[in-house]
């Protein structure tokens, strides 16, 4: 078995595709993801924040203070227009004559004096993902509305010292009992588990295809089968190689995440993230790895069984494609809001692993449930390994 294992490992390490999938991809995936997402977000945000919006204001004489504040706002540029109806303004925005139109009712001043509510209309294209323009209007309007409220209440003889309590009699403040680690674990845990499990799968996929269908296609399998070694030893040697690559992929990913996380935290001054990550203990990491081990074994056994059945490399890849979807679904379930780890979810394959990793990152894991997950996943892995060994004894599978 070990002869087969070391030979397979040697071949894989000399294979460029393996090096890309098992080593390069896990090392680069996080910095590339962080980099691309960060760059895109920073660029679009900065562009959106610096953008100057052309506006028209209808009936501005009704609210001169607001019109003045808007005029001096750095993100707005006034455009003169004689248009006033909604249809005309919408058409003008669509023709790119200006970006936004604020319509103040013609009777706003008189209604304000009579202490009556009025409705202002903001016409603009809302398709943009970063709706900074609305936020600017909203802030200015709140400020303006507060001024009006204070003016009106003063006119009604209310003591200015009591104005704040009258305007907002109750202020709700939130005291979060969750530790920083729990917050970060909740938001990052499911995504990390998703990435880890999928990388385990992708790390196992190529070597599995190569060692089963690939050997058939190259004609080396037959030569191997007539060596004085039991077929069980051969298939277990292959299984261990696939398992090793799957775990290596996951391990490199975790290390890469740690290293790049530390670098990014240092540069971006994310001290709270650093502190939270630092509170994850070695025991937590060992437990995470212990849960990934039977998961990777499940993938290795399943992929190898598929690969052994396939006649060619391409056929094996075709069989394996739907498997990725089957793996993603339980991981997505784990990411659903409100999904918690309990006795039921602890028995759902892959969902349980993703939830357990999340709990471990949060520091709130129930060790009894972790033991249950480990036992159920190991039992499933054992059954699949047994099936894989049985499968490898079948002539109808090996010589299809």
């Amino acid at each position: 078995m070990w002869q087969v294992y070391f030979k397979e490992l040697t071949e894989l390490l000399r294979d460029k595709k393996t090096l890309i999938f098992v080593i390069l991809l896990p090392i680069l995936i996080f910095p590339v993801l962080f980099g691309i997402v960060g760059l895109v977000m920073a660029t679009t945000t900065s562009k959106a924040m610096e953008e100057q919006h052309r506006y028209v204001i209808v009936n501005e004489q009704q609210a001169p203070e607001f019109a003045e504040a808007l005029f001096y706002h750095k993100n707005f540029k006034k455009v003169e227009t004689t248009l006033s109806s909604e249809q005309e303004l919408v058409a003008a925005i669509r023709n790119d004559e200006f970006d936004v139109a604020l319509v103040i009712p013609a009777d706003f001043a008189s209604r304000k004096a009579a202490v009556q509510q009025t409705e202002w209309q903001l016409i603009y294209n809302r398709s943009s993902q970063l709706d900074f323009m609305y936020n600017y209007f909203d802030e200015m309007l709140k400020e303006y509305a507060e001024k009006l409220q204070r003016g009106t209440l003063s006119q009604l003889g209310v003591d200015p010292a009591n104005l704040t309590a009258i305007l907002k009699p109750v202020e709700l403040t939130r005291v979060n009992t969750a530790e920083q680690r729990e917050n970060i674990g909740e938001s990052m845990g499911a995504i990390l588990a998703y990435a880890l499990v999928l990388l385990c799968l992708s790390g196992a996929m190529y070597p599995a295809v190569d060692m089963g269908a690939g050997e058939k296609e190259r004609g080396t399998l037959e030569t191997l089968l007539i060596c004085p070694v039991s077929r069980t030893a051969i298939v277990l040697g292959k299984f261990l190689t696939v398992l090793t690559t799957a775990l290596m992929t996951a391990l490199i990913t975790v290390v890469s995440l740690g290293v790049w996380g530390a670098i990014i935290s240092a540069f971006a001054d994310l001290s709270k993230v650093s502190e939270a990550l630092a509170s994850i203990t070695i025991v937590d990491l060992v437990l995470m790895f212990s849960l990934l081990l039977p998961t990777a074994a499940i993938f290795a056994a399943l992929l190898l069984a598929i690969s052994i059945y396939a006649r060619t490399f391409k056929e094996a890849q075709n069989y394996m494609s739907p498997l990725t979807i089957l793996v993603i679904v339980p991981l997505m379930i784990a990411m659903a809001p409100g999904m918690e780890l309990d006795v039921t979810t602890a028995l759902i394959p892959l969902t349980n692993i993703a939830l357990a990793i999340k709990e471990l990152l949060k520091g709130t894991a129930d060790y009894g449930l972790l033991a249950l997950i480990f036992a159920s996943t190991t039992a499933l892995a054992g059954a699949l390994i047994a099936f894989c060994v049985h499968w490898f004894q079948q002539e109808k599978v090996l010589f299809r």
Partner: protein
Amino acid sequence: MIEIKGLAKAFAISKGNKLSDTEKQDVRYSEKAFHSVRDVSFQCGAGEVLGLLGPNGAGKTTTLRMLSTALKQDSGSVFINGIDVLQKPIQARKEIGFLSADTGLYGKLTAFENIAYFARLHGMKEADIKARIDDLFSLLDMHDFANRRVDTMSTGMKQKTAIARAVVHSPKVVILDEPTTGLDIMTVQTVLDFIKSLKASGTPVIFSTHHLDEVGALCDRVVVIDKGVSSFSGSLDQFKQLTDGGDLRQAFLAVIANQPQQGAA
């Protein structure tokens, strides 16, 4: 010594696979199975070279796969030096050196690594492996590409490596499936010389081929398999005597055209 008696092997036909009219006429097809080998018997003694002939799809490779223990026969028996391959396949494999129609080499390993890997799988000690491989490299003139990766080798180099791999454990019997197919003249000569050296050392050699000149030059015995049955089994002289002029090609065609014939053992 290789003894084969009444060997048969059938492969199930997948449900939904309908037989063509030609297949319906073929005696090897039944409703549920394709009887690739139906009744093959022959034997090959020490120092004998046996040529296995037959049209494409006749059942030669399936027969050789059963001899090499890659496939289990449905009925009949195969004994390699008295070892029943069905009962003791691991023990039988130690006795066999098998070269498949594909070279069966790992492209990312060097010639040395390929051969050493199979030597280890045959349980050879590390100390013996290097010496044995050195001998084989000299015998097959392989020193120049000993450390070259297989995926960069020529067809001839690959075939020499495959032969060295097949016999690294000094097998008691050697089975070669079309060992000269697709090779240049020089490499063919190396292969044929190697078979002669095996014969000289008393090793029984079975090789399947379509090259009747090789049969004439090397073989002591000839077996013709047609439609899964050993239609002829006898000495080379008996095979030649099937036609007046002793022409091997005519003899082969006569066996295929006629009912099964049995030469004197």
